């Protein structure tokens, strides 16, 4: 069984078509980095997997079933946190809030729930952070707690939407390594969206590149090449590999780090905690 299957899928928001006729299969236990220029549809793709957006055409299967709004086998880490509610609460309560959060009742965990929260915190090494209020934590520390939160409910598929935004290179490397180790320990599938490919090199099993309504899925060597990216970006792209890093160039500009700078300048909202 595949973790995610797209068969001839077309996705759109309003008048705009984001993906057209895309077919792909992401296997269980696979770590896939999702890349593409701004607006290429990375978040849209994740929303479709979550069942928040119905495809215009084609069929999607998630863990063998059609996507359902409220699929509890999916752990989700959204790109940005729009609310400042609850920042005074300690990390533990923040992680615990997701446990059976869709069910009516009172938010008290019981012994089994406490064990599950403790296990998730231990897995990401955030036991200490869980004692402090969210407002006191750094972006990287909040990210760690958010990953623990995404692990509650024993998901078989993790969707991590731009977890590297607003982290410095050192913390980016740590976040990628953590996501990879969690993925291996649990034997689950991970879709990890990012602007820059370099922090994820070595951690990914395959890459998924989106652009101009199309998608290319394969190993880094297969996909991150001049011809494939030229097709997705719709312009002449040269891929330069230098000392273990990859530069995606057009007319001498490094496209990915340009995109990142551009994006960072436009993210005013609070970073996902």
């Amino acid at each position: 069984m595949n973790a995610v299957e797209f068969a001839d899928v077309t996705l759109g928001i309003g008048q705009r078509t984001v993906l057209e006729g895309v077919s792909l299969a992401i296997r269980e236990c696979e770590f896939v980095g999702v890349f593409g220029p701004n607006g290429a549809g990375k978040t849209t793709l994740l929303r479709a997997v979550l069942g928040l957006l119905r495809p215009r055409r084609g069929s999607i299967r998630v863990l063998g079933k059609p996507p359902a709004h409220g699929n509890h086998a999916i752990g989700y880490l959204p790109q940005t946190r729009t609310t400042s509610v609850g920042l005074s609460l300690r990390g533990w309560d923040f992680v615990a809030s997701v446990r059976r959060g869709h069910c009516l009742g009172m938010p008290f965990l019981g012994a089994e729930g406490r064990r599950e929260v403790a296990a998730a915190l231990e897995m990401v090494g955030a036991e200490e952070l869980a004692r402090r209020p969210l407002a006191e934590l750094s972006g990287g520390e909040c990210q760690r707690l958010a990953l623990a939160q995404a692990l509650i409910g024993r998901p078989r598929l993790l969707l991590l939407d731009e977890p590297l935004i607003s982290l410095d290179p050192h913390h980016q490397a740590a976040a990628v390594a953590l996501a990879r180790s969690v993925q291996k320990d649990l034997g689950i599938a991970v879709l990890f969206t990012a602007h820059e490919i370099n922090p994820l090199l070595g951690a990914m099993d395959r890459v998924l590149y989106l652009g101009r309504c199309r998608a290319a899925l394969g190993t880094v060597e297969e996909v991150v090449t001049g011809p494939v990216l030229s097709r997705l970006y719709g312009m002449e792209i040269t891929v330069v590999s230098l000392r273990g890093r990859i530069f995606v160039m057009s007319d001498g500009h490094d496209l990915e780090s340009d995109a990142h700078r551009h994006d960072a300048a436009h993210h005013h909202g609070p970073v996902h905690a």
Partner: protein
Amino acid sequence: MRHAFAAAGIVAVLGGLVGYFLVLRGQAFAGHALGHVGFTGAAGAVLIGISPFVGLLAVSLAAGIGMGFLGERIAGRDVAIGMVLALALGFGLLFLNFYTAFASEAVALLFGDVLAVDARTVWVLLGLGLASLAALGLISRPLLFASIEPEVAEAKGVPVRLYSVLFLGIVGLATAGCAEIVGVLLVFTLMIGPAATAQRMTNRFGPGLLLAAVLALGEAWLGITLAFYTNWPSSFWITGLSAAGYLVAVNLGSRQARASAVEA
């Protein structure tokens, strides 16, 4: 006197628990406004010849639900809420003008008169309190989840907006209850004061919730006791205790923060 303690006890526990979520969600001012809107309901009810409490309850419940439906457009907007609040009090005043015999009752409604509570009111408040707490208990888990993680909650299939509406409806009921004890103008003191103090004192959800209820209960009962011995209004004492509790918590909190900053 027994009636006063019973009524204040019921309302304080309800106000403390509801207030905890209200403060957590950053909707304290919205809660404050519901009381004022409720006053208009009470004055209007007298004008058309029904019980002011029924008017208070119906209008604050309706206003809470309405505010929930308007959602982000109003619940977090100070100016919009302030305008509604002022307009509501203006209408309340107009209704008073039409029905001057209501004036003395109006003062009790504005500032509360817990010593005048009779046995029937205690039963009504008990019913109101139990119903509101049952409703809050039923939705508290998804409400907490939807409050602190709206994006994840939406992705998990939680109807975030629905819980916002239900919660503000419960706030409307709690507001009406609090108004019976401390008056519509001072609902803040029983609903927000203890909850804000509790959140200053602990960052843990469960103990914070419990502390909010205990503080509200202690402040209400101690306030009535002090009113009995001094012959000053109980609402005055409750506001005093509520503010004092908050001040102490803020001072302790900043002292602790300084201490941990020094350690670090």
